[in-house]
């Protein structure tokens, strides 16, 4: 089985909730791990979209963010593309649970993406691509 959904939005955070709703609706009824559609996908996808809009495209509404969701027998893969220069995932990923970081307002997005999904990757493909994988079994 292979279900695919592709969406494209301007770089404005007001579009995030709609995209998340579309993706979760597309996956409804599929056999996915517990909390996939109530917690893991909504939060991880919201984080990836927010980063793409705010940091990748610098909230420039003339720039686009593309989302691709593919469900196979093995996994759900979410890709978020922006037009930015990309980033070093290893350097940006911080442990927000240490006492010194706990009272900070920011710095939890990538941490949550990694914690909620089974695999988090970043690559450059004419822009920046964040790929999140959640295995179905």
């Amino acid at each position, binding site marked *: 089985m292979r279900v695919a959904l592709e969406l494209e939005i301007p770089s404005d955070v007001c579009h*995030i909730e709609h995209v998340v709703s579309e993706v979760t609706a597309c996956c409804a009824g599929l056999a996915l791990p517990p909390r996939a559609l109530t917690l893991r996908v909504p939060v991880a996808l919201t984080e990836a979209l927010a980063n793409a809009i705010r940091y990748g495209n610098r909230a420039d509404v003339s720039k686009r963010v593309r989302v691709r969701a593919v469900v196979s027998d093995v996994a759900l893969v979410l890709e978020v593309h922006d037009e930015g220069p990309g980033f070093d995932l290893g350097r940006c990923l911080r442990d927000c649970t240490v006492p010194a970081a706990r009272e900070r307002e920011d710095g939890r*997005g990538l941490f*949550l993406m990694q914690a909620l999904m089974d695999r988090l990757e970043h690559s450059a493909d004419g822009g920046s691509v964040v790929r999140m994988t959640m295995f179905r079994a």
Partner: protein
Amino acid sequence: MTFSMRKQGDVTIVDVDGQLIVGNRQELKQRVLDELDKGERKFLVDFEKTGYIDSSGLGVLVSLSKKIREQGGALRLANLNDDLRTLFELTKLDTLFDIADTRQRALESF
């Protein structure tokens, strides 16, 4: 998503209906700060009708908690479902906030 605010005794109760995410967290922050400026000091955020919270939403709660404490006040959270509680546990924010199972228990904890 909507935020509704009301008073119960000297506690300002905020209900979060829908998501608390990057697109609306500033509205919540401003509304609570406005009440803080007016002299309110006890705040309860009730998540009974909340879907999910992202890192920006969590960050706003951290920021508000700090600002309220600096003014001698207190912030309590209530009615986190299992998904929301997981977010607080993953980020260890469950150690930073006073979280009650119910609104009533949160009110009694002030």
